[in-house]
């Protein structure tokens, strides 16, 4: 469903992607792992047009990403940002219902609020949170609100950018379980980038490792532990010694 073909992206002299090629099958949960600064976020944002690749192609259902009606294209996606990226000036329910209050998916205000409260409930938040401002919530609650916003319009494809960063292990586990449940329940295609191995094991159907701007290894999550790839092995076991330089 999502296909990267020899994608390149540089920022000045920093060549982040150097020919990334990867297939993300429809309805599967793909997790891209890799060290900090290896281009995982760039790979994700390139699909949505937040970053424009220098070369190569990204296809979504066989069509170039972003081609045609951009609003209709973006309406197929939901995204959970690393820091939540909630709008400070809007109460929680308006953050969740943002897409439902504007544009092609616009609903009456009361209906949008009802959907927002239902989505908040789905991610384990009570309706009294709806009228609070994001700044009044803990980090874990903000992630849940971000997750509720990502699924509010029931997208076909959901992106998760470092979903457990900054959370304690218990809250990280809760978010991982929520993501897995929601993706299975909605039948959505999911793409997650993370370097948290507990997230990988909880969320992934398939795993791809990005290293040196290319996909180093890709395969089912069950094969990850006996891949025979020294880079992947070093990464998943968190060893300082191995082919990946610890200081980059």
């Amino acid at each position, binding site marked *: 469903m999502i296909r990267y073909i020899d994608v390149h992206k540089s920022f000045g002299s920093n060549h982040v992607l150097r020919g990334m090629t990867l297939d993300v099958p429809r309805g599967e949960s793909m997790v891209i792992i890799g060290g900090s600064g290896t281009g995982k976020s760039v790979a994700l*944002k390139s699909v*949505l*047009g*937040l970053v424009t690749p220098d070369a190569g192609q990204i296809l979504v259902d066989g069509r170039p990403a972003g081609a045609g009606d*951009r*609003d209709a294209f*973006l*309406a197929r*996606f*939901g*995204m959970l*940002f*690393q*820091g939540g*990226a*909630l*709008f*400070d000036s809007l109460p929680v329910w308006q953050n969740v219902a*943002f*897409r439902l209050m*504007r*544009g*092609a*998916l616009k609903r009456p205000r009361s209906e949008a609020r009802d959907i927002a409260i239902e989505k908040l409930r789905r991610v384990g938040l009570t309706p009294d949170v709806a009228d609070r401002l994001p700044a009044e919530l803990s980090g874990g609650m903000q992630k849940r609100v971000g997750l509720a*916003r990502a699924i509010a319009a029931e997208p076909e494809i959901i992106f998760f950018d470092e979903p457990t960063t900054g959370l304690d292990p218990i809250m990280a586990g809760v978010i991982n379980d929520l993501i897995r449940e929601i993706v299975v329940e909605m039948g959505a295609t999911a793409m997650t980038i993370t370097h948290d191995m507990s997230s990988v094991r909880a969320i992934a159907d398939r795993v791809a490792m990005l290293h040196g701007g290319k996909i180093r290894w890709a395969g089912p999550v069950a094969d990850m532990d006996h891949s025979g790839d020294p880079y992947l092995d070093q990464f998943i076991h968190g060893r300082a010694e191995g082919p990946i330089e610890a200081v980059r």
Partner: protein
Amino acid sequence: MWRLLGGIGAPVLAILAAIGRVTIFAGQTLRHVVRPPFYGREFMTALAQIGWLSLPVVGLTALFTGGALALQIYAGGSRFDAAAVVPQIVAIGMVRELGPVLVGLMIAARVTSSIAAEIATMKVTEQIDALVTLSTHPMKYLTVPRVLAGLITVPFLVGVGDIIGIFGGYQVAVRSLGFNSATYLQNTVDFLEPLDIVSSLVKGAAFGGIATLMGCYSGMSSGRGAQGVGQATKSSVEAAAVLILAANFILTGVFFSV
């Protein structure tokens, strides 16, 4: 010699490039103004933020400036027996120059900085990216409502500032300098011409547009982290203040050159 030329050329090129970027940004804003969707709620919020909430600071600034102006004109005019011109000079000074310029600068300090800091923070925390993923164009959602609100509300603020400034001069003249109340008001009304008022309001619209546009531009083009937000805020106020004073010079020339 080459180093000297390079030292001059580099900043000149940087300034020209910045002017080019701001011009492109202004053009993009204009393009989005005339194409739907239009975000009415954000526009109303911007009207309140830029117009209504700026009234206290604009009013106080104009009041004290009008009073000080009356004192200065009286003291200076007394040196050559021209103390009686206080009402006329206060009126013309406030309406043609001080009202628009002071309101413009206060808006640059209060509104430009706040817009730049807010949008820059949104950029740093990926809220701008989030807007895009939610099928909302950041220019339409953030820039257009603010710039339109600036164009519409600042002329009103300038009008209010002019009136309050004249009122400040009147209070000082009548209460401290011995002017007759009715004569002072009559002289003020008689001396002001429609062109004075039109020029004041046109300047207000131009300064409102500059102040909000520079806030949005600096916010949208900010760098990373807290330093990026701080730099965007600082540069937005500097640029807005300089552009407002330059625009004031040009508009004064357009309206009043003989």
